[in-house]
């Protein structure tokens, strides 16, 4: 039982990290950023490339090196996200909302198959892996590496939450999410804030990518697709646009999958997870922490 919970929470924290970017972007420009999962993939490959460039690292130095790589990768994917927004999304901001969906899927294809052309279709294996010893806590077996990763994820998420709730930047983001036109009238540089939102969201996805690479070891050009889908799901469960809700949504999705696998077997896992999700949304149509939208008549 505790093992199931731990499994769910661990996977869920990855979902949450990726979902945050999804949720922020959706909250601010109402875009289903299909390419977001591919930024996670990009992050994993960027980390791989950096590690390859650094060369051999002794295993005692693994953690600090990985943390350094993490930071660099976050910057790289963050910038990639900004570039993506500039090229594929910004010019369409006044177009119908779903037009962005096309460029998002287009960007997703371009990133995936661009990476395939650059790095090949074969999966790559991280030269540096977080292995480490495992320990038993309350009947669940977990590894030190897992704890470290969850720790990093939590720090990143808390940092993000502070940023959004406590800073001017965060207020600007929330203001734009509510009403971009008024925000720009109030002197907020909408473009700059949206760029920064993409930077932060993409950086988090990139961080998740490096962490996945370092922990699981295997990366490939399509690795972002499924997790992108799950992140979107997690973001919605939590109440899209709502940061704590999104984190919670990621964890809930992880738990649903873990328990679904246990109760119904792996082949029915997604049916279980989506089934619960659908039931839940029909009962509570605003997500876990989403605001109830009062009818404006």
């Amino acid at each position, binding site marked *: 039982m505790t093992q199931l919970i731990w499994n769910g929470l661990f996977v869920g924290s990855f979902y949450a990290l990726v979902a945050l970017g999804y949720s922020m972007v*959706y909250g601010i420009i109402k875009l*289903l950023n*299909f390419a977001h999962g591919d930024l996670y993939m990009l992050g994993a490959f960027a980390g791989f490339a950096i590690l390859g460039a650094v060369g051999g690292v002794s295993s005692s130095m693994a953690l600090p090196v990985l943390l350094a790589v993490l930071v660099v990768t976050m910057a790289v994917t963050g910038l990639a996200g900004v570039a993506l927004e500039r*090229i*594929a999304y910004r*010019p*369409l901001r*006044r*177009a*119908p909302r*779903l*037009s962005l*969906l*096309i*460029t998002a*899927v*287009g*960007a*997703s*294809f*371009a*990133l*995936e*198959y*661009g990476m*395939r*052309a650059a790095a090949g279709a074969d999966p790559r294996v991280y030269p540096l892996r977080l292995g480490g010893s495992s320990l038993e806590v309350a009947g669940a077996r977990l590894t030190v590496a897992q704890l470290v990763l969850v720790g990093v994820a939590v720090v990143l998420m808390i940092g993000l939450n502070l940023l959004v709730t406590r800073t001017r930047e965060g207020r600007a983001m929330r203001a734009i999410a509510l009403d971009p036109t008024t925000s720009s009238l109030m002197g907020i540089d909408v473009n700059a804030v949206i760029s920064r939102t993409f930077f932060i969201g993409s950086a988090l996805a990139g961080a998740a990518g490096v962490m996945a690479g370092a922990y699981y070891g295997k990366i490939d050009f399509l690795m972002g697709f499924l997790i992108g*889908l799950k992140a*979107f*799901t997690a973001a*919605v469960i939590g109440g*899209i646009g709502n940061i704590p809700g999104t984190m919670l949504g990621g964890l809930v999705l992880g738990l649903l999958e873990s328990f679904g696998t246990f109760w119904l077997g792996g*082949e*029915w896992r*997604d*049916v279980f997870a*989506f*089934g619960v*999700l*659908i039931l839940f*949304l*029909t009962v509570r*149509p*605003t*997500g876990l922490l989403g605001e109830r*939208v009062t*009818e404006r*008549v």
Partner: protein
Amino acid sequence: MTRVPDTTPEGAPEDTVRSTAADTAESTGGSATAGAARAAAPDEATGEAVNETTNEAAGPARKTAEVRRRGAGRPPTRASRLLQNRWAGLAGLLVALLAPFVNATPYALSVMTSAAIFVMLAAGLNIVVGYCGLLDLGYVAFFAVGAYTSGVLATRLDLPLVATVPAVIVVTVVAGIVIGAPTLRLRSDYLAIVTLGFGEIIRITANNLDVTGGPSGIYGIPGLAGSPVAFYYLTVVVVALAVLGAARLGRSRIGRAWRFVREDEDAAEAMGVHTYRVKLAAYIAGAVWGGLAGVLFAAHLSAISPGSFTFLQSALVLMAVVLGGMGSIPGVVIGAIVISILPEILRDLADYRFFLFGVLLIAVMLLRPQGLWPARSKEVP
């Protein structure tokens, strides 16, 4: 229902009443040419009865009313009328019918048949997304339901595929209700994720059940026509009817109700549109279109498997609708053709195929943000 008033309300200013009556008289009589034009092209823009040419003969009172009516609107030119959707539709149909005379290799026929089926899917999804504004990320579920229903019935019961069509319609209507009824009250983002979920549930279920053949699916599904050419023509005819049907629905009472819901649900309700039922109707219509496309798909490939009904397929159909122009029938047809044929044109690029596909999608959208052939609300009087 107490009363549905049906007569022109009393007390309306006299001249208006008269002019309305005159309109009725003239347009029912109609000028010969106008009548002929209507008969020849049944899918005209709005069933608009007031024809400008008939107004010439009207008295001065009618004249002023007409001027007022037209107001600031630019009078339509002959050219713009010539290029109305119906002509584009006929031109498209003609191209589709003549295509095999240019190239009838198995490959070309296969690609064109697939494209035609994809057009039907897009036309169906357009009802849901384009007309009614409901974001559906799991549309391929209905496609799968249709394909599997006909495939299973045809192979297990040895039925000809045509005989499965009534069952497919029933099953897809039920599927539309089952999926739509609990979810259509949701806000659009949630509707999107729930439809995505249903799409995945249908695919995974098909993958796990024995009756659907598990992961390898169903094979040996009988075709609908003897040769690939005959099947291509059959597909084109069916798809053309489906597209025409979707267009006609879009211009009818229910089609307008869909658009009212898309524009403003509250205002639509206030006008007496039962928004929930209307949305469900859109969903069911989309489901039937998708299901029938599924029958064609099963007949075309002779074998179906869960791999054909992934989320990516749903996304591609949605892309066809958006790329062409949501709510615009010619747009959606073009969008579907582009989305299904472009990867085939790029096939020889091998590794760069989908990279270029992605880049082209972005480029096209940047150049035409409203879609290739956007819907226009401007009516032609």
